[in-house]
């Protein structure tokens, strides 16, 4: 196969969720002279941002302060968040809400017309703006509407399979179209990766099936370190099949109940109860289940019945629908079976607070990037916010970066493209000893067993060895279908390669973090250890293809990290 087309853009954005679209809109609104392309493997409105239910945090209330949001976010992240990044997140939050409102989002309002806000875990006051329990869906569709208005070039259902970099300088992407099967080279002066998380490396996951870490793996292969990639948030309340029940259900007053009918959170977080941060609630649920106080189906129950039919129907309509269709339970009548489910990738491509990666000209934002603002555990309502704030920010910093008219050197371009196409074609010539569905199922099992809610040396060592072996076996995979039009055999093979890359980095960084912090909890090192591990992990691939692990200090500006996190 060969390259059929070449496009030239100033900015090429990979991913069309909240981060990618808000970046594109920001460039389009302020710099109509810059040519922007958005590439997405699914139509933009199918992006996983649309699945976010509960809301988006911002200190927009008259009596709230961004400084409080800042502190709650730092503490919720076990002080692993960089304080410069978290400042930007909380300071810019209100503007993000106003921008969304201006673009047409239908936020719920109070009777006086101010933004309605609900309580979310780990925050000391109601700070989460929302559109019923379909906030992400409403915001994503609003952004897409503006994309249509601004006439941004969207390459919908284009799958990126290589990020081209020449000696540390970004040149462009190689991608193929699901609709036509044609391969194109998107040469660009700057690139933004905004492809979301990699939660699908785990078997039990709330993530969309498309959340396979594509951008993370491609950026990593292009030389960007994966930062804090040991931190995967496990959401406390997924249905048995992984589909999420929003934290908003507890925000509206839902109870967590064990099989003895006890609100067990009183034993773990007596002050915050069900609204303690996610990592703490998830581990509490898992302990109840592990210690025999779960129900026979391996779940505890989320009880909404006392909220009454009216409140459930008006505030949590989607939750009711999900519970009815995917668990066969009407929450007005019965409690919902729930158990922890992998939900969010705190780690990602290493960026500074300007969204710039160490690769010149390559930026990252949203869940695929890691500033870091979420530290070791993200607060509910901060993911849509990060996607918006840092999407907009990338939309400002990229034009500034391009302002001097800089163009990348293209002398080695042809050789680099030939090599990338060669690697792509090799997928069709593998030995074919192993098949993708088998390897993928094995990876999902290994990650759940080794890198779940309770980690330890033994489990993680075994897990790492198995992932390395799977990674090697993946090299022998063969794709049989050579027509590229909606070739899902090929897509699933490429996605598995991306996932194994992220899983491998996650396993390595997890094993060497000898402490417990946020989502990373170890039986053998149950305490947070600021003196040795108040630092970011950075996984890179060296010249021989081996993974290397390094660390970097956390940026501290004005807030001394606590020695212990309690709620």
């Amino acid at each position, binding site marked *: 196969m060969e390259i059929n087309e070449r496009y030239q853009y100033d900015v090429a954005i990979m991913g069309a969720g909240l981060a990618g679209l808000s970046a594109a809109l920001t460039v389009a609104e302020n710099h109509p002279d810059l040519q922007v392309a958005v590439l997405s493997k*699914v*139509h933009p*409105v*199918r*992006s*996983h941002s*649309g*699945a976010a239910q509960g809301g988006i945090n911002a200190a927009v209330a008259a009596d709230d302060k961004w400084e409080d949001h800042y502190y709650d976010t730092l503490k919720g992240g076990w002080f692993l968040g960089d304080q410069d990044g978290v400042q930007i997140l909380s300071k810019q939050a209100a503007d993000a809400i*106003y921008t969304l*409102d*201006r*673009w*047409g989002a*239908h936020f719920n*309002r109070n009777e*006086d*017309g*101010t933004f309605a806000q609900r309580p979310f875990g780990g925050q000391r006051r109601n700070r989460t703006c929302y*559109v*019923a329990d*379909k906030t992400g*869906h*409403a915001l994503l*569709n*609003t952004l897409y*509407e*503006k994309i*249509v*208005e601004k006439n941004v070039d969207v390459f919908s259902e284009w799958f990126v399979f290589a990020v081209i970099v020449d000696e540390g300088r970004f040149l462009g992407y190689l991608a193929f179209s699901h*609709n036509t*099967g044609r391969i194109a080279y998107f040469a660009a002066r700057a690139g933004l990766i905004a492809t979301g998380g990699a939660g699908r490396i785990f078997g039990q996951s709330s993530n*969309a*099936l*498309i959340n396979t870490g594509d951008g993370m793996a491609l950026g990593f292969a292009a030389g960007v370190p994966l930062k804090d990639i040991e931190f995967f948030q496990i959401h406390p309340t997924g249905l048995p*099949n992984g*589909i*999420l029940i929003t934290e908003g259900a507890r925000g509206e007053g839902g109870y967590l109940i064990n099989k003895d009918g006890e609100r067990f959170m009183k034993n773990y977080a007596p002050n915050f109860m069900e609204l303690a941060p996610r990592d703490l609630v998830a581990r509490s649920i898992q302990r109840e289940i592990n210690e025999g106080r779960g129900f026979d189906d391996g779940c505890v129950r989320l009880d909404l019945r006392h909220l009454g039919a009216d409140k459930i129907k008006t505030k949590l309509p*989607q939750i009711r*629908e*999900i519970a009815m*269709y*995917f668990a066969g339970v009407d929450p007005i009548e019965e409690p919902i079976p729930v158990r922890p489910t992998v939900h969010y990738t705190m780690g990602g491509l290493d960026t500074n607070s300007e969204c710039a990666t160490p690769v010149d000209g390559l930026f990252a934002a949203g869940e695929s990037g890691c500033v870091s603002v979420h530290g070791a555990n993200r607060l509910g309502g901060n993911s849509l916010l990060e996607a918006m704030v840092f999407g907009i920010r990338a939309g400002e910093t990229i034009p500034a970066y391009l302002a001097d008219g800089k163009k990348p050197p293209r002398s080695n371009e042809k050789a680099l493209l030939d090599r990338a196409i060669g690697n792509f074609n090799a997928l069709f010539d593998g030995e074919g000893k192993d098949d993708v*569905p088998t390897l993928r199922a094995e990876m999902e099992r290994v990650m759940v067993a080794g890198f779940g809610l309770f980690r330890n040396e033994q489990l993680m060592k075994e897990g790492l060895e198995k992932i390395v072996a799977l990674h090697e076996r993946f090299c022998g995979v063969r794709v*049989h*279908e050579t*027509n590229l*039009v*909606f*070739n*899902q*055999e090929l897509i699933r093979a490429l996605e598995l390669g991306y996932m194994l890359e992220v899983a491998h980095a996650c396993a390595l960084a997890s094993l060497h973090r000898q402490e417990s912090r946020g989502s990373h909890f170890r039986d053998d090192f149950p305490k947070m250890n600021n003196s040795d591990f108040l630092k970011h992990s950075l996984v890179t691939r060296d010249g021989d293809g081996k993974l290397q692990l390094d660390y970097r200090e956390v940026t501290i500006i004005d807030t001394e990290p606590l020695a212990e996190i309690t709620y």
Partner: protein
Amino acid sequence: MKVKYDIYRKKAGANGSYRETFEVDTQPGWTLLDVFHEIQAKFDPSFSYRYSCRGAICGSCAVRINGAAALACKTQALPLGEQGTVIIDPLANMPTIKDLVADFAVFWEAYDKVRPYLDRTHDAHDDTLTWEDKLSARYLDQLSRAVDCIKCASCFSDCPKRSEDPNFIGPQASVQLFKFYVDPRDAAHDFRVTTAKAPGGVVDCDSHANCVKVCPKDVRPLRAINFIKQDLKQE
């Protein structure tokens, strides 16, 4: 339980289509999307269909099931299988690219036609605007339904009016138009009215109500359409 699935197949670039029956051991709790995954993993890796969230919010996986459009991820397979062979087709009223993958170009063309965005040329930025106060309760329920639309094109596929008149924008674009028609912040109300009245516009709807039946999110496009029709009469 072994269930037979009679599925529309088409190779990429081919003119003709054919049908293929797969007998799949279907587990309790499986949705039709799970069945598609099983067919792709165990029977034929070249079998194609769209998917993303598998939680009825992204709108990727709509297909026709026993003749009516529905989300594969929101449809339990066993209860269907117990009634006999399950017949699966791609969405109608648009061409098929491959297997169950429909070509949405005509759907998005209709969407684009209504200028599917809030026009705020009048007030560039007014964060004190309490627009909901200006909306009566009867708009609000319907507006919230319009926001719920996931653009899965089930309504578009099964709209008899669209089948006979390819110029008709269809139920989804009508809902999209409605969303801004009732939004007091919108500066393009005249355009909304003109678009609704134009040939192929909202007023051409023949009220078959299939859109209400097949919508997986209970958006009730016909109600939005009737609202605009009524309102235009009063103008």
